[in-house]
């Protein structure tokens, strides 16, 4: 019965997401596309952090690696649909390397190690103008139109609404794959690594391998999202891949509910969309909303996490515990 209810809710939400663009203007469709991609990247971080317990403050760097990799591959003449798996693979491989510090340090030390890595990637993209266009953006090397939107089976996805459906499809695909992964014995091993690595090792669980995999798969998902972020925004510079965006991705995971399957989807929606709603909803007599909507947003997040540190998806559990 509960399963049936869940499936019904899922179908309803998916239907709403398919119908929504009919009632939205271009900017709304763009925001929904952005949400789809950030939800994928946040799902990756949720895997690394929420399920496998490995702190990472570098998720935006992998988004950037995916975006620049696919753009440079397309510029070099590689078809987009070959570029996507390649860009994912590059992010996966770099993520695997980033896993090595985690074999030595944990928690806040690991947070700083990954933070340093994000800064490194950011600076590399910014300083290697000849390759990336540096702070002038990808347009410097790809031409003023930037990264072209792809076609699929000869059908061009140039229009925002068509590209949104592609992003949504990729979100569905990623969600399904992560669901299968977490149901597999690997998912159980990730949770064992998170809950008690010493015990895990005494039960033949190779914590080295699973730590590296947790980073690599999480990074791969961000790279995959980045590969679609590039044609979504078309012109980009290194700024969306800096430390602030990594913190924003962390916020999505934590606000949604770290270690909860739908946490990234809900967290990404809240973090990306709530500031815009606030901008529209805050009464104008308080002053120009764009000057202080982030203030209200910050307080809302603070209140939520103080009251319910498990995030939005932990609220039902909390209410149930209180009722008992």
């Amino acid at each position, binding site marked *: 019965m509960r399963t049936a209810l869940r499936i019904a809710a899922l179908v309803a939400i998916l239907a709403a997401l398919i119908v929504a663009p009919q009632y939205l203007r271009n900017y709304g469709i763009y925001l929904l596309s952005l949400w789809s991609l950030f939800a994928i990247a946040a799902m990756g971080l949720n895997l690394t952090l929420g399920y496998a317990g490995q702190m990472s403050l570098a998720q935006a760097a992998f988004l950037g690696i995916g975006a620049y990799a696919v753009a440079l591959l397309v510029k070099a003449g590689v078809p987009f649909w070959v570029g996507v798996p390649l860009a994912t693979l590059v992010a996966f491989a770099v993520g695997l390397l980033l896993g090595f510090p985690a074999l030595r340090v944990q928690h806040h030390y690991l947070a700083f190690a990954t933070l340093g890595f994000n800064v490194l990637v950011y600076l590399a993209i910014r300083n290697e103008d000849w390759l990336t266009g540096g702070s002038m953006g990808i347009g410097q090397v790809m031409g003023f139109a930037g990264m072209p939107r792809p076609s699929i089976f000869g059908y061009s996805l140039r229009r925002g609404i068509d590209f949104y459906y592609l992003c949504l499809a990729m979100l569905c695909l990623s969600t399904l794959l992560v669901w299968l992964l977490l149901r597999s014995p690997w998912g159980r091993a990730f949770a064992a690594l998170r809950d008690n690595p*010493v015990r895990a090792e005494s039960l033949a669980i190779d914590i080295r391998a699973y730590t590296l995999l947790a980073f690599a798969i999480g990074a791969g998902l961000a790279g995959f999202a980045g590969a679609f972020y590039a044609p979504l925004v078309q012109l980009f510079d290194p700024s969306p891949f800096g430390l602030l965006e990594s913190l924003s991705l962390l916020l999505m995971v934590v606000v949604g509910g770290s270690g909860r399957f739908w946490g990234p989807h809900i967290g990404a929606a809240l973090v990306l969309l709530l500031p815009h709603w606030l901008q529209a909803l805050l009464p104008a007599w308080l002053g120009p909303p764009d000057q202080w909507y982030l203030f209200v947003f910050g307080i809302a997040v603070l209140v939520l996490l103080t009251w319910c540190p498990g995030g939005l998806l932990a609220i039902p559990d909390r209410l149930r515990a209180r009722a008992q």
Partner: protein
Amino acid sequence: MTPILSAANVSKHYGAIRAVDDVSFTVAPGEIFGVIGPNGSGKTTLFNCVLGQIRPDGGRVAFQDRDITGAGPLALSRLGIGRTFQSLQVFGGLTVRDNVIAAAQEHRGTLWSRLFAAPEIGLGAKADETLALFELAPHAGKLAGGLSYGQQKLLDMAMAFMADPALVMLDEPAAGVNPRLIEMIRQLLQRLNRERGTTFVVIEHNMDFVMALCQRIMVLAEGRVLAVGTPAEIRSNPAVLEAYLGA
């Protein structure tokens, strides 16, 4: 018969303190071997030397004729040595059933094949059987972190047995457990020993428990072996009485 576990002249020093000092012992297959001693006698350090948590300064440890001196916990668990910990060590965020499946899944197939394996990786029936044996079946679907202390202790033990280990090392299985549960644990361990032929090495403080459970007992004092013998021999050994009672 080849001993299943043997230690020869194992030593571990911390500065001037000889935590484990030239300790040798052998454990026969199918035996329940107890290690007792006053606080600070080196029991846990010896355990950690054998189980690869710390590397001994000297001596050798062998498992079924294979040298395992300094081998890490992962290698030992892969060889089929199970263990429990003094403190509670379960996966709190997983269900009780997933805890026991996690305890055995890595012995099946390869890392790669496990990615594509069915979620329960063929261990569902065995998990249910083990949980029934440890009287945890009614809690199978609960999160392990929500169990009582005694139930977590049982789960910790159930996990050590899931992969059919030849040898299980138990670090204070009776600590902090009520008398009824202590008796249940004793009967359970003896049953597993009888029916599956599992060998046990048990560190314990509770003398009644050790005397009733073990076939042979080694007494440590100040890092050295004070005596080895049957419970009856140990009980009547003057040196042991002196170490314990200070008489």
